[in-house]
């Protein structure tokens, strides 16, 4: 809890010693953040369109119900299907579903533990790929998405397995 404030104070102290203007540095930092947001926003909004459409149309619920059976055959608890659909798209959305899993099945239940491990060891693939390539001149993402999806699926299986052992 104290690490971050202490690191900040050390940073500021060194900046004072080197006669760096904190005020101007902050203004510059904020300006570059603004520039960055302008570059990111178009890609961000497309993802939010997709998330909202999936949610409002009810297709995500339908899809997760359809996927429950195949997931069960693969050894993935069916309670997780909605989380697995939303995880690559939305960080905040998947946190809401994680909370729902905690509330419905108990925080120490098997599905809740697997869900926690999945949330801690995978990321919002579509969002990361879109945003990281947003300012790059060559936007060819190549195999970035297929590899990330495959690795995340493998991570999901491993999480299911490990939560049975631990």
């Amino acid at each position: 809890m104290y690490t971050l404030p202490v690191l900040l104070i050390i940073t500021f102290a060194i900046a004072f010693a080197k006669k760096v203007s904190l005020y101007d540095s902050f203004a510059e930092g904020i300006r570059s953040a603004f520039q960055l947001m302008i570059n990111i926003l178009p890609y961000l909004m497309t993802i939010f369109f997709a998330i909202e459409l999936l949610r409002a149309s009810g297709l995500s619920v339908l899809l997760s119900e359809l996927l429950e059976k195949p997931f069960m055959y693969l050894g993935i608890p069916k309670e997780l299907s909605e989380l697995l659909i939303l995880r690559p798209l939305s960080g905040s959305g998947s946190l809401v579903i994680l909370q729902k899993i905690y509330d419905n099945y108990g925080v120490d239940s098997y599905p809740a533990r697997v869900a926690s491990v999945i949330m801690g060891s995978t990321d919002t693939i579509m969002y990361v790929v879109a945003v990281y390539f947003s300012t790059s001149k060559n936007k060819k993402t190549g195999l970035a998405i297929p590899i990330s999806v495959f690795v995340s699926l493998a991570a999901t299986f491993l999480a299911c397995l490990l939560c049975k052992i631990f």
Partner: protein
Amino acid sequence: MPRPRQYNYCMNVVFSIIITACVCYMLFTSPGGIINTFMDGGMASLTFSVKLFVIYAVWMSVMKVLEKSGLDIWVARLLNPITKRLFKNESEECYKNINLNLSANLLGMGGAATPLGIRAVELMENQKNKIMLVVINATSIQLIPTTILSMRAAMGATEDIMLPTLIVNIASTVTAVALVSLLVRK
């Protein structure tokens, strides 16, 4: 005549499938709500952007102070032996951003990591290096899942998920790096 592949080929495929399927499905469930749904999504992205902007503004300000004091190079040097092996033939400025992105990620400071990662990809010449960094980030490399741990603590969890999470994380990062170096050309 075969058309040249679009830039964001995979993103385009996923995005097209999602919005087409959803709009078709809504034609039967709530045809009047389609445009409103787009508006809601757009509004949600703006609200989110404001929050994201503030997070980035704070972290990029701190990074600016580090940069002007010459401390960032010092922090970045620690990871150079690993990154110079993973990412070949890039500029020093680029390596600095890769290293800072990876260290911010490892420390669980996602807000600081993203702008650094974007800058690193922007500076990269080699497409394979870009994909490598993006895949490492997209498959998560944080050591301590702070948000999940605090959510679990708030619910009064007794079971610990730190060890399995760490094992899965390490395994997935290693697999990701191996797959990118094997499958991506150039």
